[in-house]
């Protein structure tokens, strides 16, 4: 397909209801950390963007959102063009000033610490990271606790940032400052807000 066609096509078919649908999945996920929320494919973006990550982008990004994309995405003219055309986002090369980060290669991503954690007075001015992964059938099983979780919740994404438990503990320790994570797998998403504690890891 020609780049131009890829850029202009594949957006939401119903921008109002599709966005509402994806947002409710995100809200449900953020309110219930580690819960897997199904979302059907509503976009067909160019690679390396996945349909769900692109749907999240179309739901949350606009010209008031500053977004950092990892190398695989920012290196794809079609992917960047799609994001620009369908969301109007502001791109940044600086992880520390991003409202959102869009990451297709979780193994190669920068440390959580390099993103914006907000300030003590405005902890909301922090980065929300959107991680594209394959599935929630990963080998490692994390046990989660914290607000939104009645007792415990197990969580096993197929990909996690390197040294995740340490990185996450450091993020947790900075509370109320910190980053929040959204995992976008095929057909389902889950979230880890900064309040979530990882109490156990099993391989």
């Amino acid at each position, binding site marked *: 397909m020609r780049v131009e066609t890829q850029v202009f096509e594949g957006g939401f078919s119903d921008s109002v209801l599709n966005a509402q649908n994806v947002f409710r999945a995100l809200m449900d996920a*953020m309110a219930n950390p580690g819960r897997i929320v199904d979302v059907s494919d509503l976009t067909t973006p160019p690679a390396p963007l996945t349909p769900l990550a692109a749907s999240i982008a179309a739901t*949350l990004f606009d010209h*008031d959102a500053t977004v950092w994309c990892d190398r695989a995405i920012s290196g794809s003219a079609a992917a960047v063009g799609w994001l620009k055309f369908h969301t109007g986002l502001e791109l940044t090369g600086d992880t520390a000033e991003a409202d959102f980060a869009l990451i297709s290669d979780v193994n190669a991503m920068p440390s959580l610490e390099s993103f914006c954690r907000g300030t003590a007075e405005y902890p909301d001015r922090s980065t929300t990271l959107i991680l594209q992964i394959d599935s929630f059938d990963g080998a490692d099983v994390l046990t989660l606790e914290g607000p939104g979780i009645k007792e415990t919740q197990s969580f096993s994404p197929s990909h996690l940032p390197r040294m995740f438990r340490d990185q996450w503990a450091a993020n947790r320790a900075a509370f109320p400052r910190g980053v*929040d994570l959204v995992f976008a797998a095929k057909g389902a998403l889950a979230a880890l807000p900064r309040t979530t504690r990882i109490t156990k890891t099993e391989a």
Partner: protein
Amino acid sequence: MTDLATYNFAYLDEQTKRMIRRAILKAIAIPGYQVPFASREMPMPYGWGTGGVQVTAAVLGPDDTLKVIDQGADDTTNAVSIRAFFQKVANVRVTTKTSEATIIQTRHRIPEMQLQAGQTLVYQVPIPEPLRFLEPRETETRKMHALEEYGLMHVKLYEDIARHGHIATTYAYPVKVEGRYVMDPSPTPKFDNPKMHMSPALQLFGAGREKRIYAIPPYTEVVSLDFEDHPFEIQTFSQPCALCGAKGSYLDEVILDDKGGSMFVCSDTDFCEDRQAKGHRGALAPEAGTAEAAE
């Protein structure tokens, strides 16, 4: 003239919804923290639920069933007006039954029935800052939250005890969320505070005029501020509801005459009607079957 003014689906434009949605996600991630947002003018006045309406409008979808209450009742004029607004602009299903609602927008009450997982309670908030009446400046209160400096609040509550023998705050009673942020629960009676603690429902708070959104995720610790020698306690009523006979629900006093005659009835009208439908009767209840005649 009909082309003079036209409005978008669910009233808010998509850009506004995105802005509010981003704020809601942050609010959930930082329980009890007030996220500033660029609140819009709404077609109802500031102070009449514009924050709650904006949150509801950003969240609401075609699969939702909406319930709107004011003072616990579905038929108070402002509740009727807000419900009609959403029926008009979003064509959404509405209900008065707490159990059937997916989204409940409320002013001043939390329903008596325990809310369920999957339900969202949206509060209309007039003054979101619990420290506002102790320190009117936003620049100062923001610092106090950042430094977790809540001594002033305890001093105020303790001064009440010294002067009145009681904490004299009966509604909008401050809570601490997940051990970190002191939060204003909106002007609900403190009777409702315990319902916020570990609630299975998601609680969202919208303050339109003051431009703040905050949240309590499900299963989150919400503790009313108190002292060891003066523990938090809720209001109790000496008599049951005169209509449904319920004990332990929050009651409104209805004046019956000008000679001091009054009765107490449930403020949560759905709760009360549901009990009456199940055959419960209070001292002044109409006989079964005649309630419909009311106009």
